[in-house]
């Protein structure tokens, strides 16, 4: 997405939330489209999984779309991200093609990882997504390493490291944030706090109230943001990016959000109440909230929304079709990609 669009909305109204001052109507509609695309993609993947077309496991980020899209909104295509086991949203937000994502989930050679990685390793290196990661907090040091490259090679890139609240108790989090800070690296740490690491609530796992409170231990700003509010997320991201680009070092953003689905496909949902889930779904849905704002501000109307939904529906259908029809890996290629082939 563009770093700074023409702020058409802002020309009329200056008291508006950040996103409406910062982005053009087209950009905002594109953001809505991406949020829908993420949700429908995951619903499609879930459906395919239920029907046995996709195997393994998967972690859905339904309910967290504003966080992924908001954070990526101010990123340039050159900027990079590292993602997590719950990484479909990040991947789409960073510009991936759902065709190749579905193809990956179907284990096909046309997938982003040629069928070797699956959901937990979905990546789109060309668009700057260095990959989801099956290891909680595993991507955090890698993001810092990418930021070290950006600094040393003077590419101007900023790297965003996504991780969950559960990850903040891993040693890798601690070590990586400390080093990013002492070396003033251009990296933004984004903790998507959905309240639970699998079944363990943040209250039971973490000795501080807010993950952002830990930023002080690394001498960096810690920012808490409503992760279901697209504009708020984008604003925090923009500020952290700007700081990183000025060479002032990292920021820790805590994006408070919620996942609607179970942790993965094996979750009996015993650790939280139906009421809690209902409440988030009914009153704080990130897409509904964003859509309502867009309508209220006259940026989109019902027909426009329908058009977005329809376009997304079509993209999903085509994506699944593409995946189904793509070829399976050749068994003769079993040993490929382990080492770099001689040029």
């Amino acid at each position, binding site marked *: 997405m563009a770093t700074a669009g023409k702020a058409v909305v802002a020309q009329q109204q200056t008291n508006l939330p950040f996103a409406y001052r910062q982005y053009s109507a087209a950009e905002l509609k594109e953001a809505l489209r991406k949020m829908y695309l993420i949700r429908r993609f995951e619903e499609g993947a879930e459906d395919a999984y239920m029907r046995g077309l996709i195997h393994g496991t998967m972690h859905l980020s339904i309910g967290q779309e504003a966080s992924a899209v908001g954070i990526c909104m101010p990123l340039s295509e050159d900027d990079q991200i590292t993602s997590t086991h719950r990484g479909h949203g990040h991947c789409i937000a960073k510009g991936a093609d759902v065709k190749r994502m579905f193809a990956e989930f179907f284990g096909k050679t046309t997938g982003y990882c040629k069928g070797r990685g699956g959901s937990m390793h979905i990546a789109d290196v060309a668009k700057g997504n260095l990959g989801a990661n099956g290891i909680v907090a595993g991507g955090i040091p890698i993001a810092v390493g990418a930021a070290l490259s950006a600094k040393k090679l003077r590419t101007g890139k900023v790297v965003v490291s996504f991780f969950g609240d559960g990850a903040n*108790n891993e040693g890798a989090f601690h070590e990586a944030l400390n080093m990013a800070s002492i070396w003033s690296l251009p990296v933004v740490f984004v903790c998507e706090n959905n309240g639970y690491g699998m079944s363990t609530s943040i209250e039971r796992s973490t000795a501080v109230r807010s993950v952002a409170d830990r930023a002080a231990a690394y001498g960096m700003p810690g920012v808490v943001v409503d992760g279901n509010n697209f504009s708020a997320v984008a604003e925090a991201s923009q500020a952290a990016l700007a700081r990183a680009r000025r060479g002032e070092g990292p920021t820790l953003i805590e994006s408070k959000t919620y996942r609607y689905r179970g942790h993965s496909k094996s979750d009996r949902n*015993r650790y939280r109440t139906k009421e809690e889930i209902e409440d988030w779904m009914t009153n704080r849905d990130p897409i509904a909230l964003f859509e309502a704002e867009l309508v209220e501000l006259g940026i989109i109307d019902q027909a426009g929304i329908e058009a977005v939904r329809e376009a997304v529906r079509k993209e999903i259908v085509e994506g699944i079709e593409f995946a189904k029809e793509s070829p399976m890996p050749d068994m003769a290629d079993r040993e490929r990609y382990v080492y770099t082939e001689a040029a």
Partner: protein
Amino acid sequence: MDASVRELSYAQAIQEAMALAMEADERVFLMGEDIGVYGGAFQVTGDLVERFGPDRVMDTPISELGGAGIAVGAAMTGLLPIFEFQFSDFATLAMEQIVNQAAKMRYMLGGEVSVPVVMRFPAGSGTGAAAQHSQSLEAWLGHVPGLKVIQPATPYDAKGMLLAAIADPDPVMIFEHKLLYKMKGPVPEGHYTVPIGKAEVRREGRDLTIVATSIMVHKALEAAAALQGEGIDVEVVDLRTVRPMDKATIIASVKKTSRLLCVYEAVKTLGIGAEVSAMVAESEAFDYLDAPIGRLGGAETPIPYNPELEKATVPQVPDILAAARDLVKGRS
């Protein structure tokens, strides 16, 4: 159902062992990620938290190194922790505590402490969880003096070896193949132990010894049944313990059959089969060998996501059949 032939799944057998130990001894407790109300990623702890409470079925934060270290410290000071890694792959984060601390503490301190910790490692491929959730790393720990490393292959052994592990004064590492969790088999009620350090001859035979580990024991038995029809009489040895290895049982079997095939899921190079083979090749059984020592291990690649590729990455029954025929037929 008659209690003596009662069937339990492998996961239930482990759960029962833990429950029995916790009932019998207050010092026994469980630590791990999501082992409480979630019941464990593979439902091995199941509802134990309801029976024993959250103080004895302790959910930890996602902190493998610290968690393992806490278990080590607790074991040094009077408790009997059973620590679950959610996937054995995550033990890569805790190798420091396992290898530098748990394994060596007694030795470094000249025998002044023991470290009676049990650690459980759900391992192996076959679940479509790809490269970071499917490894078999038992060979690493088998290389480490001070540890005991076991790989029960049946529900019966899972319960009996876990109870032996809990009673053991030293650190015992249990590798549990995830695809075995649902496998059922006879499991006696009550307390019994299966000794650590003893292999088990699962099937007697005259023509070829197959030493197999964990899930491969079952594939080897399946292959052996098929080979019987071809007139090849296979002896299947379930290794059960990686460290200390039961050399005597393997050597005796090879002396009888004169042929050896090692079958294991881990990456072939430097996997358990390397040690079994080398142990035989340096032993008195060498003179009895009528054929090269065969090895079937995992491919030299990470575990892929695609299910067909995934299957092709670890030994399957047809691979065992082919390897066995090769060893037996190629020779007099």
